[in-house]
């Protein structure tokens, strides 16, 4: 298991570096002056998109990142060049399905509120039930937080959030690795 993870991360690293170099080029081909914050944002954005496109639309969170970036008009060039035409189609499709999911979720949420009221009417049976209630609530809160952290997580159910988080952690690690090495290299260069 560890070996496959290492292998995958190696592949991912290569892809990521490739795309990030491309992205950085595109970023600075615009000759306007940027202040520090803008630069940092550009760098981060290019890194994120590069990471997401390196995944080749295999995971939900990567699609979510790309679709979020596409909404901003400024980033269109960057996104288009990095991700390629295939994922654009995927993103469009994803947006539609996301929209449907959002509306259906709204309906569900309304019914949830109603169901909760009904549940509260029931008396608590015994002590252990209280403990389970508390535990469940804790878990629920935490899954909500996790959903907010993982890009695109709000639209997923609990199980897929955990799966996506797995993948996201791996890719974040790759990203941090590469960036760290770059920083080290530039410090050494200077």
């Amino acid at each position, binding site marked *: 298991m560890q070996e496959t993870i290492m292998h995958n991360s190696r592949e991912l690293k290569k892809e990521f570096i490739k795309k990030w170099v491309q992205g950085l080029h595109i970023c600075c*081909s615009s000759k306007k002056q940027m202040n520090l914050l803008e630069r940092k944002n550009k760098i981060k954005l290019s890194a994120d998109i590069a990471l997401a496109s390196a995944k080749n639309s295999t995971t939900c969170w990567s699609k979510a990142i790309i679709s979020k970036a596409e909404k901003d008009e400024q980033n269109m060039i960057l996104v288009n060049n990095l991700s390629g035409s295939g994922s654009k189609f995927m993103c469009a499709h994803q947006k539609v399905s996301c929209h449907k999911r959002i509306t259906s979720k709204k309906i569900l949420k309304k019914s949830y509120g109603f169901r909760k009221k009904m549940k509260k009417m029931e008396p608590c049976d015994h002590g252990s039930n209280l*403990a389970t209630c508390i535990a469940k609530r804790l878990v629920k809160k935490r*899954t909500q937080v996790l959903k907010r952290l993982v890009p695109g997580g709000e639209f997923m159910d609990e199980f897929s959030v955990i799966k996506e988080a*797995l993948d996201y952690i791996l890719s974040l*690690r790759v990203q941090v690795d590469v960036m760290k090495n*770059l920083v080290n290299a530039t410090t050494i260069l*200077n």
Partner: protein
Amino acid sequence: MDRDFFLNAGLHFEPSSQNPSWKLISSVPDQSHVDRFNTFESTLTSMVSSPVSNSPPPKLNWPIMDNLVRQNTPNLRNSIPFGPNLPSLAADPGFAERAAKFSCFGSRSFNGVTSQLGLNSNNPDLKYRSNGSPLVGKAKMPRVSSSPLLKIDGSAMGIHENKNLIETRVVNGLGDPGCDHKTNSNEESSVSAQSNSRKRKSSSLKGKAKEIASSFVKEEGSDDLDSKKLKKTEDANGETEKKSKVPEPPKDYIHVRARRGQATDSHSLAERVRREKISERMKLLQDLVPGCNKVTGKALMLDEIINYVQSLQHQVEFLSMKLATMNPQQDLDMNSHISKDLYPIESSSSDYYQPNPKVIFIGSTPITHSPVDPLPPVHGFTEAFSQFAGFEGDEDRFWGKSRSVVRDEN
């Protein structure tokens, strides 16, 4: 076959910290096998045959073992070179009988258990169990020696009979204040724990075995030993149970068995499947997130995961900020090295990379002509890429170094 059982039995007790004598077995590499076996034999005799009355003799034997153990602790996990000495073991008829009795605890799947228990995070689980059920453990001892089933050769006993044995013990002997020998109870509890985990392995009896395991874990030593009630409480406390111990191994997705006393409607079955999927994923995440091996329970695990993701994201932010402030040198010569140096990284995709050097080269020329701005353009990073690629010279070393950097930080 007794041989194997005995071998593996010795191996099995290795993880239990309360039984240093058992560790000895797995680590004996040298010539004094026979001596040690004799001592081991005697302890086994004392433990198996007359637990209640024999409190002093085992204690006598164990100090001897301790010294031997200390010598051999570095070899704990090595293979057991028992081979040449086994005939002497098996030759002893009394020993064979004892081994049979002993092997009833784990007839066939000792092998699976040892590999499972020796090497991974079930250890805390084991310890939890062995600590958590001394009462039950104690209760078992009298049953072992007295039950007529045990006289039969251990190999003949399948897991079925084992389960029946232990089930009867559960029913009859939970409140039994049998022997109060601490070491025996520990050994027995570890045996019971081991048998619990072994039962979990057996797919056919998984459902029932889990009930028994959970009953041990929760010390349901109540007088009401109706198994139905146990299972019902287990069902109700499904979530807390999952939090109290390490997630169980995942069941087969298709063949989900409804346990006795549990509702068999599709909802609860689906619930159970869903829960197990989640716990399986949690287990995977445990391996991924550093420092998560000791954490059990969904809420804590999720906590750790959230912290880790947040820390990684902050790191990305920080690093991108740092990169934004960096001041890489402008050097035209370096750009020509880029294609060469980046090849080690892109060894698999070298064909793809052909057009790129031109792009980089073309892209970099405007920089040298344009006025130098206060903040360095991002182009400089391409040199940095080349630098840290060519830095190691070798791809494998490069990746190793990057990994070690991360590890140091972690």
